[in-house]
């Protein structure tokens, strides 16, 4: 029963969040989160579970999306053919077939050659999308009306809420299926091939087939995510299969933690929030995102989930509370230091203009201002540094189970 608890929480969150954030923007962000979860989980099926670093996963997302857009467009012209609820399935099958075609040669090797092929194909498709105007719609993209399918138990999917309901059901089902995949022989052998392809071959497995199977399943869910995206936006442009989108899903999976099933979910939720909320407040959000990624790679190779999981051992020992004080002690100067750095970057960016930072108006272009900020950063950094030995000691006590 205990392993059903996370699924209950997940289902309940999907169900209750639209009531907590009922605004148009709220529903829209929730929709994007649901889509990002499916996309990031499908990506991690390659990277975390299969050891295949792809720089072109948006290809399957985008192709699925365009297929979905064409399905909607078709219904606009030929009338309702099949239920809109099945559009993600159509998109998924599109992603699956594309993955079968491309994977048949790209999965021969993992490592650098796989990564390079994925990057090359990503660029190729982005270029094709501007050439094959019939399918990709050129600069304008392809738009379709999602409300023209046959009624589905009174849903016509004209409203965002109804589309969210559809996305939530698809996201829950996809997440469950991708989780079950990790428990199948195919999923386990994907881990084995990630770790040691040669040994897997000597156990009687054709490693390319093991990789291809993961790749195709992953392509299906990426395509389905693209289909949900098309339903949500009702327009699809070449942006969706660009390398930028491929990079984005890599960030989600990595920052969330590729070593855990739940990692990409956490990354998807967080990055969707950052993308849509932070971008309202600052033009520099992409810079911040990039810095967060670099810091994650350097200091948290297990991602945010890894950071959370590190606390399981002290928690089991009942020593989690002993970390609270040293954490607070470190957090105060750390936050001050980071805020100072952000203020510095923002004032540099808006040279000469006033910047509202954390509710404080910082008149731009004044040397005294910058000097004050730099002073704050320096002092905070020093204090931050001084707080670390105590934190380290507390951490060791908590993980080794010695009470102070």
């Amino acid at each position, binding site marked *: 029963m205990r392993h059903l608890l996370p699924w209950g929480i997940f289902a309940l969150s999907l169900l209750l969040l639209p009531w907590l954030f009922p605004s148009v923007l709220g529903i829209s962000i929730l929709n994007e989160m649901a889509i990002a979860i499916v996309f990031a989980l499908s990506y991690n099926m390659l990277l975390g579970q299969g050891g295949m670093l792809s720089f072109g996963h948006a290809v399957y997302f985008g192709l699925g999306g365009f297929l979905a857009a064409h399905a909607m467009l078709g219904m606009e012209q030929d009338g309702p053919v099949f239920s809109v609820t099945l559009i993600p399935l159509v998109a998924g099958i599109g992603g699956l077939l594309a993955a079968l075609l491309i994977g048949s040669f790209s999965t021969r090797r993992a490592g650098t050659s796989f990564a390079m092929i994925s990057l090359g194909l990503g660029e190729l498709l982005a270029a094709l999308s501007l050439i094959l105007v019939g399918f990709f719609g050129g600069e304008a993209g392809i738009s379709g009306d999602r409300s023209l399918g046959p009624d589905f138990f009174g849903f016509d999917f004209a409203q965002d809420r109804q589309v969210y309901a559809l996305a939530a059901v698809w996201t829950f089902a996809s997440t469950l299926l991708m989780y079950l995949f990790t428990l*199948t022989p195919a999923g*386990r052998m994907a881990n*084995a091939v990630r770790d*040691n392809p*040669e*040994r897997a071959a000597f*156990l009687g497995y054709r490693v390319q087939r093991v990789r291809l199977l993961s790749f195709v399943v992953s392509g299906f869910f990426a395509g389905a995510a693209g289909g949900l995206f098309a339903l949500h936006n009702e327009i699809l442009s070449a942006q969706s299969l660009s390398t930028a989108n491929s990079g984005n899903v890599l960030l989600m999976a990595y920052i969330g933690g590729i070593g855990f099933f739940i990692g990409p979910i956490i990354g998807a939720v967080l990055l969707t929030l950052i993308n849509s909320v932070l971008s309202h407040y600052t033009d520099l959000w992409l810079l911040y995102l990039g810095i967060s990624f670099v810091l994650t790679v350097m200091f948290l190779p297990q991602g945010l989930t890894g950071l959370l999981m590190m606390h399981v051992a002290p928690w089991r020992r009942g020593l989690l509370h002993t970390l609270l004080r040293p954490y607070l002690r470190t957090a105060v100067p750390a936050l001050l230091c980071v805020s100072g750095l952000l203020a510095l970057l923002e004032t540099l960016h808006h040279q000469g203009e006033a910047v509202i930072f954390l509710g404080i108006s910082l008149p731009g272009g004044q040397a005294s201002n910058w000097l004050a900020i730099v002073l704050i950063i320096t002092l905070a950094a020093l204090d931050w540094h001084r707080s670390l030995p105590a934190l380290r000691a507390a951490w060791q006590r908590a993980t080794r189970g010695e009470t102070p």
Partner: protein
Amino acid sequence: MSLLQLQCVSKHFGRTRVLEDISLTVEAGERHAIIGPNGAGKSTLFDLISGRLSPDSGSIHFRGQAIQARPPHELAQLGLARSFQLSSLFPRLSAFENLRCALLRPMGFGLSLTRLLPRAHALTARTEALLEEIGLAERRNTLAAELSYAEQRALELGLTLASGAELILLDEPVAGMSRSEAAQAIQLIRRVTQGRTLLLVEHDMGAVFELAERISVLADGRLIASGSPAQIRTNPLVQQAYLGSAIMQEGVDA
């Protein structure tokens, strides 16, 4: 017909001839050891038989089929399993998961997308039993990368024995184990290879004389002798190849 037959097999790396004109037969049910000084070419011979490398000339037949150009996974499917002198494990999987991966194919799970491992009770039971047999029951959930050297050797042996293959190739299976661990491993090898065919490379002459009914001696890439343990002990060529080495002496005492 012999289970395994090598005819005039040669292999060189660049200019160095590592194996020269090797002809060797292994009968079904036989326990056959290959001994020889370091660098004699024993591991290279295993690489050729198991499909990791292909010979420059000569032929290798397994169960009557020419196998010298077949990839490792096909040979494994034909019933050939091998261990590696340097443990070749799945480092980020637990000891249990390592063994389960090795048991998937022999127990008919293949690459199934519809069966769930937690529900495969027979598979789990078989994995636990094998884990017990190789003495790693207590290290069930430890990642292979975090096992000690001797434990990794035990797991390496487990991965190979799990296959239930007709022909089992073991490359120095007890090297690096303590005396008692080695004795246990030898018992396990003896039991698991009952009714199967074993080709063994080992420096521990105690293990060789305990396990093998036939011994072939490789020196400098050539097969210089082949026969029963008694014949090998008294063979003047072998004694010459081992001149200055205490290995044969140790074997005689054992």
